């Protein structure tokens, strides 16, 4: 295989997976929980745009912006209604979170089944871009760039702002932060909300190239899980490394062996790594 193709697709896939996993990692890092309802955010985002655009009749641009309101509301709701009541009983919490995910999925499937043909015309770049011998759909490249930008913004947020600092402190030592008097509820809601933005952005951008149906959440979510788990459950450095490793695996497996084996091989490799390094690539001592 041409190394350029491998390189370009590693970059594109890696960046996309990073974008999908970003919010999930933040939640795992700050709240130290595993938000299994995360996949629903993709759906809420995409279908909210459609709802505002087609059902309410707003312009597409306004719908795009308004869609972030239900997304944020859903994230806050997840925390307040599911995570907080079950914070001490994690088995209940995880089960309840999957429950919420399935409920959202089914509600959306009820109102907008696949035959409705939901699509989002967010195509910014037409056609394919040629980089050396590799040709990439321009939209994918654009989405990858946006996802990289988001990473940078979030890193700056965690490093520069006071809220980001507090979140890092919580992720490092929740016990000490509690003593210092951090308002956990507020911080957790904020984390959940800011963590809900990246998946929404990603789904909106890749909607034109990715088939949109009410059950698309799980396939995107599975990449978020793989990357986050491989990266060490809530460590952004690890997540970045893991995203590009998975990107590389998918690029090579997809082009060299069989595209249908992409997810399978990433899963197998992730589990294999976890068996050797049970805590992922970077130990999740803190978020950054």
């Amino acid at each position, binding site marked *: 295989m041409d190394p350029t193709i491998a390189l370009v697709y590693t970059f594109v896939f890696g960046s996309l997976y990073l974008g999908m996993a970003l919010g999930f990692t933040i939640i795992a890092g700050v709240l130290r929980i595993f938000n299994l309802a995360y996949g629903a955010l993709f759906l809420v985002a995409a279908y909210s745009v459609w709802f505002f655009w087609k059902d309410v009749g707003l312009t597409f641009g306004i719908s795009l912006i308004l869609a972030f309101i239900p997304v944020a509301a859903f994230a806050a709701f997840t925390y307040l209604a599911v995570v907080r009541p079950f914070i001490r009983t994690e088995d209940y919490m995880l089960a309840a979170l999957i429950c919420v995910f399935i409920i959202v999925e089914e509600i959306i499937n009820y109102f907008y089944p696949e035959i409705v043909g939901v699509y989002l015309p967010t195509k910014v770049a037409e056609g394919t871009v040629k980089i050396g011998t590799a040709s990439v759909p321009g939209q994918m490249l654009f989405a990858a760039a946006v996802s990289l930008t988001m990473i940078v913004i979030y890193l700056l947020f965690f490093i520069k702002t006071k809220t980001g600092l507090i979140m890092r402190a919580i992720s490092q030592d929740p016990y000490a932060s509690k003593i210092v008097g951090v308002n956990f509820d507020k911080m957790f809601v904020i984390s959940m909300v800011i963590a809900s933005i990246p998946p929404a952005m990603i789904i909106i951008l890749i909607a034109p190239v990715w088939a949109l149906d009410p059950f698309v959440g799980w396939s995107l979510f*599975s990449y978020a899980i793989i990357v986050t788990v491989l990266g060490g459950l809530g460590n952004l450095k690890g997540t970045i490394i893991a995203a590009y490793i998975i990107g590389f695996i998918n690029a090579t497996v997809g082009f060299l062996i069989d595209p249908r084996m992409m997810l399978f091989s990433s899963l197998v490799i992730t589990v294999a790594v976890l*068996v050797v390094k049970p805590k992922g690539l970077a130990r999740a001592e803190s978020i950054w």
Partner: protein
Amino acid sequence: MVRLEPRRGRLILHLARRKFDWVIETRYWRNPTIGFLIWLLLPIVIYYFASLIGLKPVALLSTLISANILAMICIPLTLQIIGTGRVNFGPHFFVAIGGYVAALLSKNFDVHPALTLFTAFAFGCLIGLALSPITIISKGLYFVLITLLLPFILWEFVYWRSDIFGAETGIPGVELLFWTGDLITDLMYYFYLSFIITFVLLLISDRVLRSRYGFLMGVINEDEEIAATYGTNVNRIKIITFTLTSGAIAIAGWFLAHYQGSFTGPAWLTPAFLVIILLTTTLGGKGAIYGIVISSYVIAILREVTRTTLGEFSTVALFTILLIFLYLLPEGFWGLYRKKRYREYAPSIRIRRREVT
């Protein structure tokens, strides 16, 4: 004059000058016997009841069978959770393993169901044994994650080799266990077979949990470092538990394959099925194996009722109800009946446990 007087542990009915009193303190019941009898007679009662009011008993019977299947999965799972101190989020992986083994053997090599049962169990054990090191290496959320990924792997694998596994069309042509020509009779047979399997699993689990090993498993569930500090070979117990319970869960897959005459992995490898299994286990009452029988019946019946009455909206309704149960019944169904009796150890299932001192 009729007066009903509820007292602590008993209900007294004053009828004129006579008094009837019922002990409702469950402690004095011969609970296991009563439960067993109800369970045993349930399909027959339902059958006659249904024919009395002109209902078709087929749906009712198959609901009972699916309840038994659920219990077949959840009883070994509970045992596994207690004995390994970890919550397995991939039990349906082992169901699918059992199902595929039985279906492939039966379809391609015409193997007798008794033999496929044995192979399914053995293969489940084998895979469980191969995976058992993860019960030692990882714990808490990490264990949840690895086990959560297992069904996804199988799912992808099944789609990749759809020539063998048939992906979403499944593997047809599996030998049926009972084929009398009369659907109701068949279903009765299937019910009693699943009943026997569940009951045997229940008895075995009960015996194990009451034994010395069961007690040590309880300690592992609470704090495996303490168990090791006081002389328990924790790893051995964890590996044995994980291996055997994995095999036992695979039996449910075997039953499914021979009951439906085909096996379709993607139908069972879904997160929805995982949630149903997990909620059956937790709503059963945190490690109470008797509670699981209750909760699997409640959930299976609930699933059937929502499916028939609500149509397209049924899944939403079902999971909403289950979610509400989670809020309202933190102790599970069994917790409603079980009095706090300290003499009996009641396991508490948690995912994240205390780290090193």
